[in-house]
Every structure is written in structure tokens, then in C-alpha cells.
């Protein structure tokens, strides 16, 4: 029986490794024991942080997307499972197949040409249901077709892109796209799952990856910050202004209420990485009131250990205390929730 289990697991593991299998049909071998965690994970934005060719629903819904930027025309055209990215200056054009889509909603493509990697000069923005200049590339003014194709990525940048948007794409510091699994899989966060899988089949659970739940909020911030940018990383890179609103661990650590030793303020206290992001503001109230108790009628004093209670409201805390901040893009503002929790006053300067 155990042998049969082992074979099943190995086959399942092999099937996960197989590049090209669609995300929707992916079944994690971890699901056998960790069903709750794996049920929806593959469909979350993290699970689909990278979409391989043929799996991008955008292309099926929009077989032809085009935009003119300066003297260049960009076209993203889909025929069947094949999508090509074409740049034309009117007389000449360059076409490259799109193999990888980065991002589930707003999408950017990493283009490979002659062994070099480029970040596409235009991206898809859901707000306009069309193409516009990629965020951060607005100041680039390409003069040639090659320059117009996209921003050339260094080997380091390429590795970083794939390292966060997919799993097993980097091994021993080298890009290993043959073993790459699209999106963030179990192994991405829980290193050692393969060994654990094999051991678990044989009843040995000693090699189970360390539980991330047990990490302090400070360490969880650093863990998630490996891709979402930790406080230390943002400090080191010196990213100032609203551009750093995208880096939630950094923003959170700057909150007055952040306490690296208190699990009630960690990333995973509010967000379950195995499920979709919850958009309903009121669903986070319980996270806030875990510290900031709400006075009930007739209650005179709160527990001494409780943080201040809000004198204004008892619900939808994030609406006021975690304001939305827009980052300007070529397609209009991109809205992010500012994770620096505070009494946000109208007209206040963005706190760095």
C-alpha cells in the first residue's frame, strides 16, 4: 500500500513539475493532506502570478489588442494558443511570441529574443481594457524597433522576476526555466516540501517544513517581503514617495501599532495566502478590534491591555485608517491600500 502511495505521490509530483499543464487542472500533491490550503491556492493572484502561453484568459477574450505610442504601434494578437507581441514603426516590424504573462489583472510580458529578456514596453491595464506604457517605463523614449520592443533586463532582474512570479525557476543562482512552475506554488514558500512529501508517505513527518504560522510578525514581514519587499529592503533601496505603497511589509512596519512580537499585526493575521484576497473592508474589522476593543453600551472601561478604541466608528476601520493611494500610470491611477495604519487626516502628506 505504501509503495502504491509512493508511486502515486511521485507521479503527482512529476505532473506538477510538468511545464505546460494548465493552472486550472493543476492538482498539488500536497492536497492529499492539506486540502484546505490547496483548494483555492492555485487560482489566487499569487498562484497565477505567472501565466504560461495559452493559459491567459485575457488573450482569449481580446484576440487583438493594439496601441500606438509615439512612432511605434504595439499589437498583441492571439491565434489559438499562440500569442505574438509585435512592434512596428510603419515600415518594419518585430514579432516575438509571448510565453509568459506576469500578473493576473494588470499584465506585463517578459519577452525572450536571441537569449535576451525584455520587459514589454506596453502592458495590459484592466481599467482601460487595453494597452498602455508599462509602469515605470514612461520616461523611456525608444528610437529604434529594438528599443521599442521593451526594456532590456539584466540577468539579475530576469531571475528576480521569475523568482517571485513562479516556482523553481532559479536554481543555484541560475535561471532554470525548464523546471519552472508557473505562479507561486506550495514549494515556493514551504521549502523542502518534496522531501516531506516522500517522507510523509512512509509515515515520517520529521522533515516537515517549519511552520510559518509560528514565526513572529517581524519574521513573517521579512518572509513575505522577499517578494513584496521587506521594510529593510525598501530602506536599503531608498524607494520614497507613493511608489512604496506597493510594498506592504514596509508600509506596515512603519505603522505606530506595528509590533514585531505581536502576532495580531502580522501579514497572515489579516491575509490568508492560500485564498483570494478579501476585498470587503468590514471583514478586516475583527483584526483591528483584536487590539482596539470596541466599547459596548454601558461599558465604562476597556481592558487595561487594550489599545485605544476608535471614537468615530466601530466598523470598516480600514476605510479611514488604511487609505487608498493612487500611483500614476499611463492608464490612470493604480489604486493600492496603504498598509501604514494611522489616523489618516484629509490632505495629509504621504508618510514615507
Amino acid at each position: 500500500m505504501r509503495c502504491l502511495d509512493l508511486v502515486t505521490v511521485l507521479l503527482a509530483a512529476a505532473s506538477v513539475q510538468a511545464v505546460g499543464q494548465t493552472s486550472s487542472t493543476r492538482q498539488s500533491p500536497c492536497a492529499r493532506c492539506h486540502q484546505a490550503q490547496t483548494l483555492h491556492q492555485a487560482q489566487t493572484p499569487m498562484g497565477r502570478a505567472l501565466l504560461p502561453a495559452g493559459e491567459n484568459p485575457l488573450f482569449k477574450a481580446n484576440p487583438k489588442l493594439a496601441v500606438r505610442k509615439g512612432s511605434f504601434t504595439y499589437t498583441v494578437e492571439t491565434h489559438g494558443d499562440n500569442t505574438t507581441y509585435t512592434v512596428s514603426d510603419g515600415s518594419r516590424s518585430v514579432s516575438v511570441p509571448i510565453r509568459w504573462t506576469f500578473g493576473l489583472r494588470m499584465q506585463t510580458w517578459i519577452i525572450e529574443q536571441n537569449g535576451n529578456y525584455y520587459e514589454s514596453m506596453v502592458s495590459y491595464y484592466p481599467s482601460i481594457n487595453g494597452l498602455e506604457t508599462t509602469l515605470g517605463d514612461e520616461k523611456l523614449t525608444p528610437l529604434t524597433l529594438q528599443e521599442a520592443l521593451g526594456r532590456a533586463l539584466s540577468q539579475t532582474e530576469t531571475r528576480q522576476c521569475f523568482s517571485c512570479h513562479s516556482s523553481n525557476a532559479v536554481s543555484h543562482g541560475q535561471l532554470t526555466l525548464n523546471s519552472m512552475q508557473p505562479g507561486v506554488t506550495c514549494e515556493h514558500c514551504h521549502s523542502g516540501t518534496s522531501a516531506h512529501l516522500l517522507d510523509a508517505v512512509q509515515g515520517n513527518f520529521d522533515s516537515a517544513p517549519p511552520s510559518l504560522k509560528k514565526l513572529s510578525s517581524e519574521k513573517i514581514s521579512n518572509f513575505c517581503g522577499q517578494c513584496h519587499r521587506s521594510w529593510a529592503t525598501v530602506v536599503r533601496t531608498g524607494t520614497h514617495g507613493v511608489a512604496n505603497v506597493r510594498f506592504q511589509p514596509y508600509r506596515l512596519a512603519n505603522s505606530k501599532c506595528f509590533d514585531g512580537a505581536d502576532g495580531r499585526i502580522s501579514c497572515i493575521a489579516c491575509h490568508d495566502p492560500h485564498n483570494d484576497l478579501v476585498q470587503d473592508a468590514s471583514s478586516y474589522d475583527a483584526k483591528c478590534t483584536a487590539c482596539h476593543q470596541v466599547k459596548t453600551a454601558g461599558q465604562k472601561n476597556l481592558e487595561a491591555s487594550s489599545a485605544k478604541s476608535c471614537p468615530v466608528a466601530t466598523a470598516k476601520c480600514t476605510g479611514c485608517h488604511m487609505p487608498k493611494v493612487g500611483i500614476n500610470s499611463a492608464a490612470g491611477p493604480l489604486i493600492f491600500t496603504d498598509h501604514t495604519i494611522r489616523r489618516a487626516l484629509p490632505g495629509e502628506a504621504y508618510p514615507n
Partner: protein
Amino acid sequence: MVPGRYWVLEVYRMAPAQREASNSRVLVPWMSTFGIGVILSGAAFSAGGRIPCAVNDEVVKAPRDNLLVHAGEIREFEKSPLLAKPARSAVPAGLLDCPHSCQRNQKLIGCPERSLLPDSRSIDMAKWSKAKAVILICALALSGTAVLGQSGSSFDEVVREASVAREQNDVPRALQLYSRAVEVNPKWAEGWWSLGSLQYGAKLFSGARDSLSQYIALVPNSPSAFALRAQSEVELGDYEKALADIRQSLVLKGGDPSNEERLHIYECVLLTRLGRFEESLQAYRYFVEKGISTPELSVAIGLAGLRMALLPKEVSDDQREVLSGAGAATYQYMAGNEDGAADAFHSLFQHFPSQANLHLLYGTLLFPSNREASLTEFRREVDVSPSNQRAQVLTAWALLMQNRSLDALPYANKAVELNPESAAGQLVAGRTLVDLGQSREGMEHLERALQLEPENLEIHIALAEAYSGCGRKQDAERERALSLKLAQNRTNPFALP
């Protein structure tokens, strides 16, 4: 020369032709000093007036030689002073030696210190003080009179002569004349500049530095002056000040692009010489971005990469090959040719297997993009040289960045053991222990590190995280705020500790 009161000055005459000094006795009619341009600030004067004086008992109308007052007094002469005996007749011993402490230039004329001031050792101080008082009185009396015009014309004459001397490449005389001119008019910026640049050219670096300081005080926005003063300071071995001046010159951004390149190379070289190797390597990126590459540059980059606190001119022939190779490989890596750099480094590892810091250099370059490969190189460096404290620190750091604190522990401990006064060593030890849950011991190391390097960003970051992790919110907030402040000037996000 009629009987009466005379200002008797014993002087050394600096005869331009011979460049040697001889003593003279100058007699200046006391009442006539109002007609003579007296140079206040020291001893020299030039007789620009028409009233006859006597030099060595010979009546002259305008003794224009440079005169160094040896002694001076006012004396009454009942008969012609030419008939009176000179107070001194012999040239004092050591006259031709520099009267100051300058060891470099033994000739009085080349003294970079205060070439026209008298030496207290060879002067009759009582008489000299008296003479000085007289000069002062005269100068006060002269102020605001038509004599100024004569003084001005005298100054103009010195300037003109200095310029001529310079054009004729008569450096000693030009130096002397410019010195005189700036003593007459210390606000003459151009004079200080000319003097400073001449002194630099004549390898009188101390004098050049001082003259250029005077110039900078008058013209504080001159990038060239900061650059030249920096070069003088380099020659004097004052590298910290030289670096500050080079950076100020770069801030002022003057001159042509080739000057800017020179300034950047100076900056890099000085950072290396000061042992600030990481900063130096970062600074060399300027040349990579500009596509500037020369064999000399490779050697200079090699020095920074292999952590040798030397100036390129101090490199011996047997060091040149490995330095040049390491510099060229580093350049390739910085230029984005990672594969080419890898080949170059592996070739160097084969040819120079025991070369210190070679693996460390490659690991440092790899660190921002490839932590695992950099760790491998750091470990190889430890194998090559277990006593290399930097290699121990970076191995521990690379392991910490991979959340492998238990593996980092022996390297961190060794780093502290090798050099307890190293902030980087204390930092990795502190971070390791904090990560392993030994917060109290870890924070002791971190706080020690902070004492050693209060401005080190990584230490503040580590302390912020350590305090936060153990619930010391206020301390964490303070350290975060300090980190953010220090990070304002941070240029390299992947800087190693």
C-alpha cells in the same frame, strides 16, 4: 646722504640673477619713509619712491630687489650715515638654508612656508620688533594718502614681474614675486591661485595646499581649486582631506568632462587608499557606465577589489598581473557581461590559487543577484585564508540572507574572534543570535557594533528588527527612524556590511 634720522635696515638682498642672498645695509631717510612703499606684512619693502636711499653705502634711487629685513632700527646720524660703520657686516651662518622648518627645500628661496618672513633664530629680535613697530607706524601714517597709489603701482609692478617670470618659466622668481604680491594684497585671489599652482608644479605641496586654501577662502566655488588642493593633499598623505576636496570639486561640477573623469578616478583611488573598498568599487561604476577602460584603470579597480590600500603608483611589478586581471574581470561584471566575468575569474583562480580576496571579490560582485553563488565564493575565500575576517563576515552574512542562521553561527563567531573591534563582525554575530532566538546576547553584539560604527545603516536595521521582534516598540521605532534617515544617502541597496 645728509646727517639726520635714518631708518637703518639690515637686509638680505635676493639678487635675481644669482638666486642667492647677500646681506645689505639699507639706509632710508626717516622722514622720507612716507615716500616709500612699505610692505606692511613682513619685512620686504621695495623703494618705489624717488627719495635716495643707500644700499651698502651706495646711494640708489629705487632699490627694487627683494629685501629681507634682518634687523632694523632708527638711528640719528650726526654726519652722513655713509660714513658710519654698518652694524653687521657678515652674512650669518646658514643664511642660504631655509630659516623655517621645511625639510624639503633647503634654499631660502624655495621655502614653501613663509618665504619672505625673517627667521627668529637669525634675527636680533629686539631690533626687529622695533623695526616692525616703525613699519607699522609708517603704514598707519601712509593709509589714505597718495602714497597708496605709489604702493598700488608697486604692487602692479610685482604682479607684472611675476607674470613675466612665469611666462619665462622662471619658477623660483615667479614664486617669490607672487608670494610678495599676495602678502601686499592678501585679497588678490588670482595671486593665490597662481602661487598655489606654481607651488604644486614645483612640488612644494604644503605651500600649494596653503595657498589654495587662501584662494578657496576668497573663491569658494572653484572646482579647480578644490581639485588642485586635493592633489596637494594626496602628495602630503592627507587622503581624508583630499577625498573631501575631490568630492567638493565634483559637487561644483566645473571644467570639462575629462577633468570630471580625472576627479572620479581620484575619488576611487583615494577611497581605495583609505581602505573603503566597497565604496571604491561602487565609485568605479562611473567608468563602466561611460565605457571608459584602460590598463591603468584595471589595476586601480583591482586594488579596490583585492582590498589593497595602495595607490596605483605604489603597485609593484609582481602584483600588477593579478591586479590587472582582477580589475578587468570586475569591470566586465559591472558592465553586465556576467559570463565573460565568470570565465575571467575562473582563469584567475587557476593562475593565482592563493591570492587573498580574489574569491571574496567575485562573491561580492555576485551577491546582489546570486546569493548562493556568492556564498560559494565566500566559503572558498575562507578555505584559502581562514584568518580572513572579512571572508568570515560575508559568509555569515550570505547565510543569514538565506535565513540559515544556524549555519552562519560558526562564521559569525569566528569573525568576532578574529577581530572583536570589527563592527561588521559584531553585526553578523548579533543578527545570527537574534535569529536563533538568543535575543539578549544578540542585541549585546548589535549594540557593541553600533558603538563601533554609529552611522552604519545595517546595524540600525538589524537593531530595529531585533527590538521589534522582542516587543521593544519604542526602541524599534527609534531605530527605524534612524535607518530611514541614514538611508537617504544610500546608493547601493545591496551593500554588504
